[in-house]
């Protein structure tokens, strides 16, 4: 996948199943039979990856929800989106 920027639009892959348990996400990628557990921010990112909102929209949504350095947040979300794409959970929207 090409470099992820704030204008990139991503969506969950069709074989990804997940549920939120006490704020965290239990994620199963069916084709790989892999189970991941994502923390609260990771769970939020997965929820936001609907194929309509851009990664920049995610950053704005998370900045409104979590306190802290917005530049660091943007950097972390971009890196995390790349990680999830690399793990096969997200694909271009």
């Amino acid at each position, binding site marked *: 996948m090409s470099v992820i920027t704030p204008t990139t639009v991503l969506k969950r892959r069709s074989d990804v199943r*997940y549920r939120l348990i006490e704020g965290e996400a*239990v994620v*199963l990628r069916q084709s790989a*039979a892999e189970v991941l557990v994502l923390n609260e921010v990771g769970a939020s990112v997965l929820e936001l990856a609907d194929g309509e909102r851009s990664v920049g929209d995610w950053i704005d949504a998370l900045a409104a929800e979590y306190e802290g350095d917005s530049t660091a947040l943007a950097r972390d979300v971009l890196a995390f989106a790349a990680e999830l794409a690399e793990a096969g959970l997200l694909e271009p929207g």
Partner: protein
Amino acid sequence: MSLSRVIATAWRENLLFSVLVELTYRCNLDCFFCYNDLGLKGEPLTREEYFRLFAELREMEVLNLTLTGGEPLAHPDFLVLGARARELGFVVRVKSNGHALRGELARRVRDEVDPFLIEVSLHGATAVTHDRQTRVPGSFDRLLANLRELRELGLRVKLNSTLTAWNEGEIEGMFAVADSLGLPLQVDPEVTPRDDGGREPLQVTASREGVLRLFRLQFERGRAAQGGQVEVQVARGGDDGTLPTPVDKHCGAGSSGLAIDPYGNVYPCVQWRRPVGNLHRQGLREIWRGSAGLAEVRDLTVEVKERLAVQGAGGHLLNFCPGSAAIQAGTPFELYPAAVQRRELLEQVMAEEESGRKKKTSLPIVR
């Protein structure tokens, strides 16, 4: 957080995580030792009631939904219900005898239901044994052909089997069949009574020697597959066998899991047939939150854990099931023969393994 901690949280906080739905008790095979209560009467849940149930489960953040029976594909709405389950994002497992899973139906299951896993029953390594158990001539050959077809379609399949007096002599052959198909095989060493308490299925309980042979084989295969590391499998964890980090309950019956029969009766677990509500009268969320019977079951799982503590470190080898105990001994606390035998035989095999390891490590000194 790890998956084991998530499961522990679900047990502790009573967060419904996995639901097993018996869609119908109809079946195109006639297994002698079937545990279903075929005499149970009631009004089957309608398609709309299933839709309501699935919607509630989605709202409750349930992840795992298992569709079983009887033979689930014998339910006239199987594909419709499976497709709805897929739309709602459940991890769908289908437990089937595999007899009808071929051709157009198999393709539609793949394309419309997209199950994470199809669990299919294998009863023997030969047609003679398999067909004897299913009481349907030709079922073995048909199953093998269907399994090959499912593999070609790209469906994920796992084989399940129950060790019986009839198939224990060909357990190695059953693993060979599974290996030749490239499929995992899980063998349950226990035949259980019927859900109505009927003990006829126990007539084909495997012999002590047969169970011992199975355990030895499982250890041998585990050792070969895992480079010497063998873990004892227990069946009371999550759907993938994951065990939770320690909590005060023995199992997740009624705390993270539920089972529902074709007539809407809700049970804490597929093996614990103690009704805690009925979906014709109440929604599932109402049962989950308000059922006095369910609250009692949750307390019982705590008490089971406390009572089993006296069994010491080897207690987990019993793979004790309160549901099995309730049906076999009338109380969810009493050790039943199969559990006791399981521990004895596992301890024996583990001792043999330990002895084998010591011999191996002493070899350099002998030289």
